[in-house]
């Protein structure tokens, strides 16, 4: 069985890879490589590709960081709780053995 620490770390890595994919695809493809394609569409007066490059990606970056912070905070609490549970279990076993 994987240790808590290893499990926690691989959950973190999975989350980072997922978010880095979004972080990379949206600005670099939407705002640079395929910008001409997206510029056919419009968002009010903004050509969409131009908007992604000069506005949208920045809002996305903010959202990514807060999403990551929230998810990791939950993950921290989860593993923190599990650690406490395991400690209590150990203590109870110890007491039972002594009793």
């Amino acid at each position, binding site marked *: 069985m994987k240790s808590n620490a290893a499990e926690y770390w691989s959950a973190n890595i999975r989350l980072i890879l997922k978010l880095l994919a979004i972080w990379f695809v949206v600005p670099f493809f939407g705002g640079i490589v395929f910008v001409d394609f997206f510029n056919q569409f419009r968002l009010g007066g903004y050509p969409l590709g131009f908007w992604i490059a000069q506005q949208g990606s920045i809002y996305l*970056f903010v959202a990514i960081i807060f999403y990551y912070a929230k998810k990791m905070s939950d993950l921290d609490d989860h593993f923190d709780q599990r650690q406490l549970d395991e400690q209590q279990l150990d203590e109870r076993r110890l007491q039972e053995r002594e009793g």
Partner: protein
Amino acid sequence: MELQTLSYLVVGFTFAVYIGIAFWARAGSTQDFYVAGGGVHPVANGMATAADWMSAASFISMAGLIGFSYQGYGGSVFLLGWTGGYVLLAMCLAPYLRKYGKFTVPEFIGDRYYSNVARIVAVICLIIASITYVIGQMKGIGVAFSRFLETSYDTGLGIGMVIVFFYSVLGGMKGITYTQIAQYVVLIFAYTIPAVFISLSLTGNPIPQLGLGSTLISDGTYVLDKLNQVVMELGFSEYTTSTRGSTLNMFFYTLSLMIGTAGLPHVIIRFFTVPSVKAARQSAGWALVFIAILYTTAPAVAGMARLNLMSTIEPTAGNYLQYDQRPQWFKNWESTGLLEFEDKNGDGRIQYSADPITNEMVKIDNDILVLANPEIAKLPNWVIALVAAGGLAAALSTAAGLLLAISSAISHDLLKSVFMPKITERGELNASRIAMAFTVLFAGYLGFNPPDFAAGTVALAFGLAASSLFPALMLGIFYKRMNTAGAVAGMLSGISVTLLYVFQHTGIMFVQSTSFLGNMSPNWFFGIEPNAFGAVGAMVNFIVAMLVCRFTAEPPIEIQQLVDNVRSPFSAGAATGH
């Protein structure tokens, strides 16, 4: 009230606030001096980080860079690059370095790679990157003073230095953090108020980010459509689509700025000041919120101020402004040399065109967009005075952050760890104050005598941070097997490739005559300009580090435990669940 008196009052008031904070936030320990005691609230740290990050260049020059030099869309490289790096920072560096809980970036590298060589290489990269950066801030202080308060450049720089000296030597990181918060408030109001007014007057929408996508009050066309039409009539390329070089160049330029941003030590150390790992992650989010307020406003300022400027010069198509009827702001900025007019065809009118032969606006400095914006939009004098205080706040806050990064590397990494390991806490605090004092004086000296290479140095700062520090830090956290040999070989090869590329095109230390390939786009590697090369340097670093690491011994067991400890946000004892 007279504009100049008003400017003195507003700037004087902000300076009094900074000095007041310096007295209140004196440092009592090395913990205070290096990491502000480690108890800064994540939102407060986010605000301080934003001020630390947004320099004189962001405040004064960026909108103009987007609007003029980079022709609109091409300026996206700055907007994306200087914000996207925070995502890397928040997920790949800040939380783990905070967990490690030490004072400087080279300290982590030295401990993780169990080597003083690695530490000293990191110190050298840090010092070069930060000093090149700080020269720009010192110049920014002098320029802001001389333009707004009509003092000489030297006097302005002298006053600025005294202020920085005061709060950074007295308070270290603690003093710097709390002044940066005040400076953020000043600079963000100074930036957004003129933007709101210009958006309101052109489009009727008070939010500049929406205004740029709205229609003009005057004739109902969209702002960006009008802008495209006006610039193309004069022979410039289309505002919303003109790229900076090739698509590949924009790609690498953006990526280099992102990686460089995440690797700049003066930004990373800000995350050492928050109380926990959780707080470090949140604080990165808040930092980017506060940065985004300015960075999403900047494209609106760029587009609208450029449109305003052009419609002043050419009120209706083909009908150019008479030179002797030019508005007052035009005359004001002409006298500073930021605008220059030359009546080539002698008709007394201002022909503005993309063709250098007929163009009569021989100089439009990038900085004019932000500096003259309140006057062009006919805003009251107090707004202009506020912009002066904002420009100074941006330059001072970034300078202070950089100075701390440099002086702590000297006092903590060189003095305490390498030369005088037995120094007491009290002694180190004094040493760090002395190091700070000398750093301020040295930076000031460079500000008074800016070296020839000052103009090209920001590229160097980002290139070095991207090609040396970022990969070493990231591998140190994410690749447990990485060892001393790999990291040092990676850093040295990353730096060498980047420096070689920058210098061969722009001259050794930016002295033109020593450039052996010339700064010509046909000679650029796949059309990538020197400013955009940091990402390539970073890749070289990663590859070399991985290769060398394969063929050398794995790091000792206690280093692998150190990595485990850094990865886990829990306290050291609880982290190793078996």
